[in-house]
């Protein structure tokens, strides 16, 4: 028995080690490439994970960690690293126009080509493969012909050898294996498409200039690492790095730019500038009110459901009906409300109009949008509060009420002096957690009305019902052509700090870390 077991676990270990070895080799390959391209944060995160996994599988004392090493690796990459990377992003200029590392931007610029005056010229003929790939046969002024295909080095080849057919009178092969030769009249209609293709591989890249001539291209820019400048090979213009963009003395800039450290620039942008700070404070205050109102009202409704129908005939049916919103996915629920309140399609507007003669502009008027998102959120979350307070009430010992009855307490008195304080004490951790959750309740805000209506006269686009996290989303993903990841990250950093404060607050009410015992 014992013998068999060790055998099995040894095979298991070897198998495990094999899988892990392949995985680590794969990660290491990516790490080297990332490092070469200058993506240092991601390269170091992956290196840390590699070291961790290697240690776990090579050192005997880490054996218990083998049970979940992969999970820890995943969490390091997708939970821990994003937090650290957000802090890093908040001090960079990453955003539209500055999405690459300096090395990537240099590589990109250096791969741009231009057609130099007096470069080497060739006569040419075009070939096409059945899958629409093109190849050129190049005829230099002297020497053997060359076969040129996009992305591959030029090949010296002799007609009549290696799949290349016999030459015609100009020295151009009549056939090439896998390709069909194009006649002049076939070439003319596609000449502009052909002219956009770079044949060959840098530095020997060839492009068609006319129906007769193809020329060798040269790199347009060359980076000079000693002076840290980019030089235009065609005009000789020198571009110096200025805040993540290569800029000439005349102020001309090269795209793409690259990511550089900008210090606390983003924080100054929204804390130091009154026109930014004031609307941001508005967003913050609404954010706090939204979270507070959501928790308070949902909890209140939940309590009503828990307490008010106790002992009422039919209370089971009532509660079963009242829990209906719970299993409906959040997005679907919000879409339902959005349609219901829609003035043209929903039933709410006609109903209110027949009752009161008018119906609020749920999507255009900021005040009514706020009312609506809180209403929707209460609808979504009161069943949860009902369930947790019903659970908590069951844990209140019954003797306490007996004593109160003796003292002649009324139903309201019992609720006010016994039930509520005890409930609050039991549920405080969940209430605070719920506040934190609603403080970042992106879904309700964004799906209901995208955080709109817009706030007038702001430097960056903001919505009147935006909360901080939906504002972050707006900066990073909505605002077309001016995404600003650095600024979005800086605001997220503020959110991290706010949430840390809430957690400290929460820790005062509960032994937050008791689970870790």
């Amino acid at each position, binding site marked *: 028995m014992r013998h068999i077991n060790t055998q099995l676990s040894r095979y298991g270990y070897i198998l495990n080690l094999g899988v892990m070895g392949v995985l680590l080799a794969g990660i290491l390959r990516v790490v080297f490439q990332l490092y070469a391209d200058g993506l240092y944060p991601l390269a170091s995160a992956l290196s840390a994970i590699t070291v961790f996994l290697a240690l776990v599988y090579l050192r005997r004392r880490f054996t*218990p960690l083998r049970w979940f090493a992969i999970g820890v690796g*995943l969490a390091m990459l997708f*939970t821990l690293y994003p937090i650290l990377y957000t802090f890093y992003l908040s001090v960079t200029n990453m955003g539209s126009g500055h999405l690459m590392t300096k090395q990537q931007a240099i590589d990109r610029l250096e791969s741009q080509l231009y057609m130099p005056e007096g470069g080497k010229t060739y006569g040419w003929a075009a070939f096409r493969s059945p899958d629409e790939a093109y190849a050129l046969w190049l005829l230099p002024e002297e020497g053997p012909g060359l076969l040129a295909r996009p992305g591959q080095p030029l090949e010296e080849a002799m007609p009549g050898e290696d799949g290349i057919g016999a030459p015609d009178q100009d020295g151009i092969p009549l056939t090439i294996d896998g390709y069909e030769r194009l006649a002049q009249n076939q070439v003319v209609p596609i000449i502009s498409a052909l002219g956009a293709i770079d044949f060959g591989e840098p530095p020997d890249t060839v492009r068609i200039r006319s129906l007769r001539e193809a020329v060798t291209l040269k790199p347009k820019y060359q980076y000079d690492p000693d002076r840290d400048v980019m030089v235009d090979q065609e005009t000789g213009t020198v571009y110096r790095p200025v805040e993540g963009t290569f800029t000439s003395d005349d102020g001309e800039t090269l795209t793409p730019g690259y990511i550089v450290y900008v210090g606390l620039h983003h924080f100054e942008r929204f804390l130091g500038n009154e026109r930014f700070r004031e609307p941001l404070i508005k967003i913050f205050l609404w954010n706090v009110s939204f979270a507070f109102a959501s928790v308070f009202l949902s909890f209140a409704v939940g309590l*009503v459901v828990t307490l008010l129908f106790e002992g009422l005939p039919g209370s089971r049916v009532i509660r079963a009906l009242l829990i*209906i919103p*719970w299993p409906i996915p959040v997005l679907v629920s919000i879409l*339902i409300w959005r349609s219901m309140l829609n003035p043209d399609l929903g039933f709410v507007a006609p109903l209110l109009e027949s009752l009161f003669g008018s119906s609020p502009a749920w999507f255009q008027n900021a005040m009514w949008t706020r009312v609506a998102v809180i209403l929707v959120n209460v609808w979504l979350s009161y069943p949860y509060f009902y369930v947790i307070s019903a659970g908590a009430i069951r844990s209140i010992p019954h003797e306490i009420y007996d004593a109160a009855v*003796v003292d002649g307490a009324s139903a309201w008195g019992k609720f006010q002096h016994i039930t509520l304080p005890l409930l609050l004490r039991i549920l405080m951790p969940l209430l605070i957690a719920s506040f934190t959750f609603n403080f970042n309740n992106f879904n309700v805000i964004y799906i209901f009305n995208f955080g709109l209506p817009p706030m007038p006269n702001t430097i960056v686009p903001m919505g009147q019902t935006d909360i901080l996290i939906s504002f972050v989303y707006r900066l990073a993903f909505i605002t077309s052509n001016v995404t600003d990841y650095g600024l979005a990250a800086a605001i997220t950093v503020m959110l991290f700090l706010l949430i840390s404060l809430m957690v400290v607050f929460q820790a005062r009410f509960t032994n937050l870390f008791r689970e870790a015992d």
Partner: protein
Amino acid sequence: MENTRNTPASRTVLLDHLRTGTWVGYLTRYLIAGMLIVFAVAPALWIVSASLNPAKSLVGGTLWPENPSFVNYRELVTNDFFPYLTWFGNSLKIATITTLCTVTITCLAGYSLSRFRFKGRHSFMIAILILNVFPAILGMVAIFTTIQQLGLYVDALGLDKHVSLILIYTAGSMGINVLMVKAYIDTIPVELDESALVDGASPWQTFRHIILPIMTPIVITIGVLTFIAAYGDFVIARVLLKSSDQLTVMVGLMLFQTDRFDQDFGMITAGAVLAAIPVILIYIPLQRFVIDGLTAGSVKG
């Protein structure tokens, strides 16, 4: 105490209280119940009725369509603009795989944390708790840019790929679930696995044949919670997925609604009802497990 309660004086007070309270009290309570039920049920009822309404534009007055039909549903699965069934399949696939990964990882990790003593075990759990405090949504900018960068080097881990979404969901749902599993295994007597170990079973065999079968309730709880969360996620999927065929049903519905609200209102309502069905189907028989999971922290302390 029994004596005091049975004295005639207090009994009269109670009866008086009930007698005056009954009629008005019951009526008020039924009234409040009625209003709450309308608030709770009307949206759900309305969306079902709208989805069964064959008329292109709804007349706001009628709550139930005069000639209900499934024409909106048929149009939903056959229309040329939006591959609804593909989205639906994507969502089920992503949520199912995420659930399997999460359950596997959390069960193994929970067992290890509960049964083995090793250096760093305590700080490891503290780290989970601290990380778990920050909602995953805060990482959206960082996750987006990271996935964008990773995609340049590893094709399957780039934007618009389900694999990256599944890994992110799995990583995000592990934290607190690991601790739940650990707490559950803590309640299983250690003598049970010790006797197996004495008989010569390996830790793996002990886990597989002794512990795992007893763990079914917590496995179901975590499975259901993970599935519902992954299936219902909007923002991470919205940020990472781009091409129409890759979308999840939640992202698809949202785009659908934003783009073609007026033209295809019937189809959108049908899409919303269909999208809710998997969760409701899972929820009804397994409600107890959902509630157990969500209230785990509240009553225990």
